[in-house]
């Protein structure tokens, strides 16, 4: 499903964040990308989501080679992913429900259907009661759950997350962990960049360990 061969990313200025990395992620797998901070985890996630372009090597997602992808095809590629960002990237000018509805509006789902599905997604992460709340009124853990609801509302094949429990206390972090595990159980491919060792202890996922940009 996601196949990288000799993948490298060098940023302008010469810093090489990802060096000659090769791996294959099968559909339905749960894969953790781990490593110390600065090891290239975030860059790898951004490469998979076509937010960054590889400098060399190839990255094939769903049979599409990202290096050769036209700019206009990128939005359609990204719709395969549910993205959860470290800083959540929630929109603070609208309610929780409206935040979750954004991906559905992007694909042009009729409003009524979009509301129904957004509420179902909020229910899955335990936030249905807070659907009218603005993100600023939510706790850190709730905000991260809201971000997950937005990521899964369009039923993506792959859930792609970058440090989803980075800034959370232990309880909230383990809640997030369980939510990801539950999506994995129903067949969603889960790819998470994290340095949280609890994941490995509890779920024994496939692990891509990065050190200074290379697999170790």
């Amino acid at each position: 499903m996601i196949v990288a061969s000799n993948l490298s990313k060098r940023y302008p200025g010469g810093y090489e964040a990802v060096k000659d990395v090769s791996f294959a992620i099968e559909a339905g797998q749960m894969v953790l990308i781990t490593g110390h901070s600065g090891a290239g985890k975030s860059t790898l996630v951004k490469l998979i989501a076509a937010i960054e372009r590889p400098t060399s090597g190839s990255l094939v997602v769903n049979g599409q080679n990202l290096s050769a992808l036209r700019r206009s095809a990128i939005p359609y590629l990204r719709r395969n992913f549910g993205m959860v960002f470290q800083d959540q990237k929630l929109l603070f000018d609208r309610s929780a429900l409206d935040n979750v509805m954004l991906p559905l509006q992007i694909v042009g789902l009729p409003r009524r259907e979009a509301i129904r599905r957004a509420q179902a997604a909020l229910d899955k992460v335990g936030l249905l009661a807070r659907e009218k709340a603005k993100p600023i009124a939510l706790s850190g853990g709730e905000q991260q759950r809201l971000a997950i609801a937005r990521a899964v509302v369009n039923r993506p094949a792959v859930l792609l997350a970058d440090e989803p429990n980075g800034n959370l206390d232990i309880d909230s972090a383990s809640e997030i962990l369980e939510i990801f595990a539950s999506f994995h159980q129903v067949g969603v491919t889960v790819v998470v960049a994290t340095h949280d060792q609890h994941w490995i202890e509890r779920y024994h996922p496939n692990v891509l360990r990065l050190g200074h940009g290379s697999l170790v």
Partner: protein
Amino acid sequence: MNAWLAQHGAALASAFRRLWSAPLNTLLSLLVIGIALTLPAFGYVLLDNLRDLGRSVSGVQQISMFMNLDASKKEVGEIENRLKQAATGKWRFVPKEDALKRMQDSEGMAEIVASLPRNPLPDAFIVEPTNSEPEALEILRKEIAGWPKIAHVQLDSAWVKRFDAFIRLAKLALWMLAAIFAAGLVAVTFNTIRLQVMAQAAEIEVARMIGATDAFIRRPFYYFGALQGALGGLLAAALIIGALSLLAAPVGELAALYGGNFSMRSPSIIEVTALAGVGAFLGWLGAQLSVSLSLRKFD
């Protein structure tokens, strides 16, 4: 198809919401656009009315009638009698000798005239008819053309031609003015949209990351620009109609003083629609330019 409609509907709704959510900004933008459209459009309406006025009151009209070269003094006298009887209005006789003398006085013509074996100019009458309606003039012209020894009858429409030339010049000036104000309108929309893109940077960034196409991101701004322009156009139409209704009474009085019956014509539904359409197009153009430039930094 449904998704397409839903997306356009949502973009239009969001454009309305944005206009509504900042009433003061909206009002100011609409005023600027409205005034920019009012000036050339009002000029157009005035010119249009002036042209109608020119048609109905075609001023002092003259009919020139030329006799055959071989017409005798007696035959000229016969025509004079007929003109008296017809009582068409003022008239004067221009003998061919006078005409030749006038020509001789013109610069550089003296030698040419001297070299002529005989006077090539005919006797002529210049008539200023009392009834200057175009149809009446035409009937008179035909009647005179049937009189004996009349070679040619000509309606002098120099005044009408000059007036037409003036209208054409004024129109050209108006088009230039319109072009300048159109550029102004595009610039106003450009700036409004640029500020909006900046204000919504977070939303645009997130939407991009979760699979929004360029069209999805641009659409609400296009609708906003077009909507703002169309509303500005309607405001301009309202201003023009208001100004015309204020002018109606004084214009009526002035026309009455000249013994005329003239009233200003207000813009028609089609013209109002066209004004809104022009506003919408220019607004869309401004949005298009602005979004193309502003969104570059998100790549």
